[in-house]
């Protein structure tokens, strides 16, 4: 496959470079391509014509397109690839797939460094850079390997029993040491420079896995014409068929796969996603898949993501994820060169790599025959074939004979010898004799574990099969069926047939029918496996979970200490908790626990399968939603103008609002904000309040509706008037405040606070649809439709005259405080005018269609120049509302009742409304609830801070003396000192009293005087002026 990325819409059939493949390899033919001493001279699905150079731990090597990092390393004779988690034991390559526990590397460099990358799935590209990890100073010489000597102390759970004394040493000494020693690779520590994207895919039938079963399923379903998606985690289709040498209908398996790929590519309704792992199954037919779009090249091409997260919505799913081979548990079974037999076959057949020269095969499975044959065909010497069964099946015997290999029936390996690479094995024969056999490769197979993970993600527990010595899917997610090795149908013929049937059945369940797909004839095979969970009386450490260094002794110890349930075993020993999630070890661990506790495995139970099936980059799960694009940004109508004016912005929910508008020469925000406040108080200012929620309410019962959702009564609100209203939650606390203006007999416009706009609309819809569906009331959000600007200040009316068209009388008499009406502005533009004031000045809000908002704003700025108009931002807005004692989000914070806020008079006693009854509970009516007051510093120079707590003067600051807190504070340019609002116990009765505003987290402790919350124009003359 070329370096061009495969685009999802152009699925490419895998291209095989099989032309060069020849059956047998000469004895001395192993020198292979350019320094790749272990590359077989022919064969393999690699592009020999091209080579890729790469480095591992700084040394350069060569490989070919079609290689993984692991196969390329093995081609170069590199077996030592990593160090283990706990004991820092040298480790090699165990598998040829995503289940790899050992061969984890740091891939790439700099900000793109990816720790813990499995060499067995990393596709080779030119210039690939990889390093070994979790070793110091070097892979060959790792000082931490001392842990191996301490192993008797470092048994499972040892840390719970020690490091307790002295107590303070845990954080200071022990833990930092443990933390430094733990962990695997190093994170880049820099922002990820690549991009990720998400996409949705809908289909009738999803087929997970492109092996024998999956290909058949996809074809069978695809031929019915339904929309079929086939996902394959590998960069090639075929599964075991490209790893093994099989014959299907007289085709070699690789050719059969190519043929099937061609068939599928010819069906426009079938979509193939390669390099795409289905990693999670979620409710109601949602599958999450990760497509590695650009991981097989050094850097993603411009405009393309590194990876893509697919949300696949499928009506039916065929799980054809195959099976994972199990290693065997014997002494020092972790030595580099000990490999899964199936992986060895994959390296021989698919990658044309001989992972050794002298092999020992140690297997409990009838598949040994294939391993022996493939080794022999590749010219690898076979020192011995060891089968623990007393009577070895004929097939294996024949294969061994054909290969000229010694067959040791009833024997076991008790220990592997060698450090950085296995050099011999110690075996015990049927007679009990101990013998040593030299070798550099040990092919092990302890049977197969069906990949049932995805079948269990929704909680369905798998069922134990004694016959297969494995768990099989049971209680599958709705719409899912399993086929092939994933379903325990290990034999190829069975897998093919099961796949074809499952594909057709899935289609039938979607209502489509088709012809059965002809199942190819296959060469026969025996899939029998005799479970051997561990070699007894082994020597050395016998690992069950290789990555987390969990041994059979650890399992035994857990059992001994009472951690016998499968889940206890896992948590106590960490078995199955490493990056491979125990794909090669869980079943063995459970079986050993069953053995130690003399219970059936079914009773020990499997541990829980959880997403993701294989680890998924966090960046991919976030997609494009990071940085500034984390959440959408809402822009107000004057945004553009404010940018031109150099405004500072502040986030208000999703909105960006102008916080203040600095002028040339103003260096600190306070100077700007003071100026803005003074402008409003002395001349006129303009503020964009479009972010307030606006809801259009119509209907014959709109008034009745308001009566039920607001605390006060609305029956007397005349047309052309607005009023302030308060809304409670059903629990009696204040939900929001805002205005309601009556435009016509049956039409109103409601405003909400910016923060609560969405919540209030939902609440009103709830009331209208669920609580009182009999009312004739229609709600529509018009927040975005209108630009709304406040113009406030003594000159506001002068400015208004210049904006509102002449025919409208906006004199105080004709348009008094709280008037509301429709007008035209700027020569015919329909607008709405409200005389409401948040600042306490004479003020109006003009609303115009949002597209003309900027024009209106510019117009007002221009025509107001003669009055000295200036824009003001949220900061000045906030100061002025504090000066006026208006409550806002800081006070309406979900903790306060109307009475707390001094708004108790707004609760009508004459009607039912949301929150009325619950507001009468004793806890909400208690006399000692903190209530709204104003605060000023006794020493007028002192600064006030919201968040300070009130302590009685002279009292010691303790929790018991806590009497409330400052909700809002601001420097008042009008009064020339700080002012605050707060909630104080018995507050309204304490005006004039001095209390402490205690703010230890900011070092504040200020004497403040309690006062009425309205600091400015308490009688409201100005706003009525």
């Amino acid at each position, binding site marked *: 496959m070329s370096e061009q990325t495969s685009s999802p819409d152009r699925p490419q059939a895998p291209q095989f470079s099989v032309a060069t493949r020849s059956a047998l390899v000469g004895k001395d033919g192993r020198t292979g391509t350019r320094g790749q001493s272990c590359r077989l001279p022919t064969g393999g699905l690699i592009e020999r014509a091209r080579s890729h150079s790469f480095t591992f731990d700084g040394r350069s090597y060569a490989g070919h397109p079609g290689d993984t990092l692991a196969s390329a390393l093995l081609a170069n004779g590199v077996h030592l690839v990593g160090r283990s988690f706990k004991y820092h034991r040298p480790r090699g390559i165990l598998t040829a797939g995503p289940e790899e526990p050992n061969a984890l590397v740091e891939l790439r460099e700099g900000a793109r*460094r990816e720790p813990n990358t499995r060499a067995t799935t990393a596709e080779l590209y030119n210039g690939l850079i990889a390093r070994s990890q979790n070793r110091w100073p070097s892979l060959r010489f790792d000082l931490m390997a001392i842990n191996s000597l301490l192993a008797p102390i470092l048994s499972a759970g040892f840390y719970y029993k020690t490091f307790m004394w002295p107590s303070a040493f845990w954080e200071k000494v022990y833990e930092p040491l443990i933390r430094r020693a733990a962990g695997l690779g190093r*994170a880049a520590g820099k922002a990820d420079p690549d991009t990720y994207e998400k996409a949705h895919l809908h289909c009738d039938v999803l087929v997970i896995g492109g092996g024998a079963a999956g290909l058949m399923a996809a074809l069978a379903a695809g031929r019915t014409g339904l929309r079929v998606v086939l996902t394959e985690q590998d960069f090639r289709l075929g599964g075991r068929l490209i790893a093994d040498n099989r014959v299907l209908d007289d085709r070699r398996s690789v050719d059969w796969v190519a043929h099937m790929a061609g068939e599928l590519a010819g069906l426009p309704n079938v979509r193939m996603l390669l390099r795409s792992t289905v990693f999670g199954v979620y409710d109601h037919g949602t599958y999450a898949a990760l497509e590695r779009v650009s991981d097989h090249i050094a850097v993603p091409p411009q405009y393309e993501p590194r990876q893509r997260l697919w949300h696949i919505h499928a009506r039916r799913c065929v799980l054809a994820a195959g099976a994972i081979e199990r290693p065997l548990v014997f002494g020092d079974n972790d030595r580099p060169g000990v490999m899964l037999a199936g992986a060895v076959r994959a390296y021989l057949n698919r990658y044309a790599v001989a992972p050794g020269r002298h092999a020992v095969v140690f297997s409990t499975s009838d598949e040994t025959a294939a391993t022996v044959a493939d080794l022999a065909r590749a010219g690898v010497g076979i020192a011995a074939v060891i089968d623990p069964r007393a009577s070895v099946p004929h097939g294996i015997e024949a294969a061994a004979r054909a290969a000229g290999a010694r067959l040791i029936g009833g024997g076991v390996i008790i220990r592997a010898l060698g450090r950085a690479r296995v050099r011999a094995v110690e075996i015990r024969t049927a007679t009990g004799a101990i013998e040593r056999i030299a070798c550099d490769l040990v092919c092990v197979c302890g049977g197969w574990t069906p990949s049932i993970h995805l079948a269990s993600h929704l909680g369905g527990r798998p069922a134990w099969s004694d016959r297969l010595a494995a768990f099989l899917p049971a209680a599958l997610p709705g719409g899912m069926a399993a086929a092939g090795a994933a379903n325990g149908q290990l034999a190829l013929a069975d897998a093919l047939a099961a796949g074809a049937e499952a594909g057709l059945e899935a289609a039938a369940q979607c209502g489509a029918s088709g012809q059965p797909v002809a199942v190819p004839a296959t060469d026969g095979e025996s899939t029998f496996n005799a479970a051997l969970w561990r070699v007894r009386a082994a020597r050395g450490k016998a690992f069950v979970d290789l990555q987390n260094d969990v041994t059979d002794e650890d399992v035994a110890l857990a059992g001994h200490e009472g951690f016998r349930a499968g889940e206890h075993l896992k948590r106590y020993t960490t078995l199955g908790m490493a990056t491979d999630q125990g794909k090669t070890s869980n079943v063995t661990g459970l079986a050993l626990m069953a053995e130690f506790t003399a219970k059936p495995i079914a009773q020990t139970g499997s541990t829980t399968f959880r997403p993701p099936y294989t680890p998924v980059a966090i960046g991919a799960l976030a997609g494009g939603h990071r940085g500034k694009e*984390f959440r959408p940004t809402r822009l107000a109508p004057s945004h553009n103008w404010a940018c031109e004016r150099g405004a500072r912005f502040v986030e208000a929910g999703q909105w960006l609002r102008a916080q203040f508008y600095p002028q040339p020469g103003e260096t600190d925000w306070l100077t700007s904000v003071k100026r803005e406040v003074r402008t409003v108080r002395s001349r006129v200012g303009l503020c964009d309040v479009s972010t307030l929620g606006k809801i259009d309410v119509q209907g014959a019962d709109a008034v009745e509706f308001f009566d039920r959702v607001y605390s006060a009564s609305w029956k007397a609100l005349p047309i052309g008037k607005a009023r302030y209203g308060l809304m409670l939650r059903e629990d009696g606390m204040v939900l929001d405040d805002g205005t309601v203006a009556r435009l016509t007999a049956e039409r109103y416009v409601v405003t909400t606070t910016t923060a609560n706009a969405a919540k209030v609309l939902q609440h009103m819809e709830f009331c209208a649809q669920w609580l009182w569906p009999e009312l004739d009331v229609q709600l529509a959000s018009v927040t975005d439709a209108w630009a709304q600007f406040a113009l406030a200040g003594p000159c506001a009316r002068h400015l208004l005259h210049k904006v509102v068209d002449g025919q409208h009388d906006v004199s105080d008499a004709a348009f008094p405080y709280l008037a509301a009406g429709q007008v035209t502005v700027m020569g015919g533009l329909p607008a709405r005018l409200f005389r409401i004031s948040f600042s306490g000045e004479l003020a109006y809000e003009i609303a115009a269609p949002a597209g003309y908002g900027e024009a209106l704003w510019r117009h007002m700025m221009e025509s107001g120049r003669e009055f000295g108009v200036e824009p003001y931002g949220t900061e000045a807005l906030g100061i002025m509302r504090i000066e006026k004692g208006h409550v806002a989000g800081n006070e309406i914070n979900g903790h306060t009742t109307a009475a707390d806020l001094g708004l108790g008079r707004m609760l009508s006693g004459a009607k039912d409304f949301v929150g009325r009854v619950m507001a009468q509970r004793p806890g909400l009516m208690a006399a000692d609830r903190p209530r709204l007051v104003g605060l000023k510093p006794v020493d007028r120079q002192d600064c006030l801070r919201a968040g300070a707590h009130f302590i009685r003067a002279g009292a010691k600051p303790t929790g018991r003396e806590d009497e409330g807190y400052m909700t809002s504070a601001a420097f008042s340019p009008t009064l020339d000192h700080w002012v605050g609002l707060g909630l104080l116990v018995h507050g309204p009765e304490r005006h004039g009293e001095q209390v402490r505003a205690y*703010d230890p987290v900011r070092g504040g402790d200020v004497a403040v005087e309690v006062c009425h919350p309205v600091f400015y124009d308490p009688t409201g003359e100005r706003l009525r002026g």
Partner: protein
Amino acid sequence: MRYSIFSVLAQALKGNTGWKPVWRDAELKPAYDVVIVGGGGHGLATAFYLAKEHGISNVAVLEKGWLGGGNVGRNTAIIRSNYLLPGNIPFYERAMKLWEGLEQDLNYNAMVSQRGVLNLYHSDAQRDAFARRGNAMRLHGVDAQLLEREMVRAIAPSLDFDNARFPIAGGLLQRRGGTVRHDAVAWGYARAADQRGVDLVQNCEVTGIRVQGGRVLGLDTAKGFVRAGKVGLACAGNSSRVAALAGLKLPIESHVLQAFVSEAVKPLINGVITFGAGHFYISQSDKGGLVFGGDIDGYNSYAWRGNLAMVEDVCESAMALMPMLGRLRLLRSWGGLMDMSMDGSPIIDKTPIAGLYLNAGWCYGGFKATPASGWCFAYTIARDEPHALNAAFRLDRFATGHLIDEKGAGAQPNLH
């Protein structure tokens, strides 16, 4: 047997063959003075403190599955006492104090690690709200520090300070906050309770509560009937179901909360960090995995598993806060069952049925409470009255209006 470096060394020489079971797998006896339902952190701690503080050791803890298999075995292990409201602070601070002495109390290393909890703020209003909380903590003698942006940068330089949608403005730090090895809490309390004679009975689901004349008589269980002088319920996410066996209806909904762990990497983050502009928090386990989480999934569920949208939401926040996480891989996600109460605060109280006591409503924050919850619940059961520390956690507060609503979210559990 006592645990220490000496026992570890001695056992090492013997090939680790001499260790005793951490607890006896007890058989259910016909009757107990007190039966605790639920072998999670709170149930086990309650049993321990009943024995230790009140000399009541004829006690059984009944667990329907395996000990510690509930939320105590799946939470993100954060401990802190940075609460706002007076009903909460002293209680959580007691928990913190008990954590600080836990190893010695239990002779078990649960790895209480006070590496700090940092809550980020992103606006002036949020800063003031944090100041209010920090001040409340200080008034109650709890440590709290308000940090400005540059101080946060010094502690956690790898956060996104330059390109964020919601820029970091500062943080509230509780240095004594941190994490504890969650499973070990269950095991440590189990071992210590067992050593004091408490029977820990696994695979023993309670299926009925027998009440006679307004007084609790005993329990029907998967292993038969057991008589009980007093019964304490500590069933976390399953509280409503178990309370219903006694005819009680609770102000609780069960919701799923997910958590996540990444592949293990070398140390990257020291303490706990929470994002203030989205639901996200993160720490790094001693093993090296980044442990993180976000909001609850948001609808009633007993399914112990989460949805994809929340996974994505959490990872979006993760990337917004720490864009360096992009190439690290999510290793595992899981869900637990939260007993979300109507005001977001717990209940430790007597019930209308004599001899029946309730410990529930922990929401997503009950792990940090474990020692104090066990301590107070034991007190309430032993003395038949609440201790001052849990006096506010009353069952009738919803009727009286004495709510403890830290978030001010009102009677909607999925908003707490």
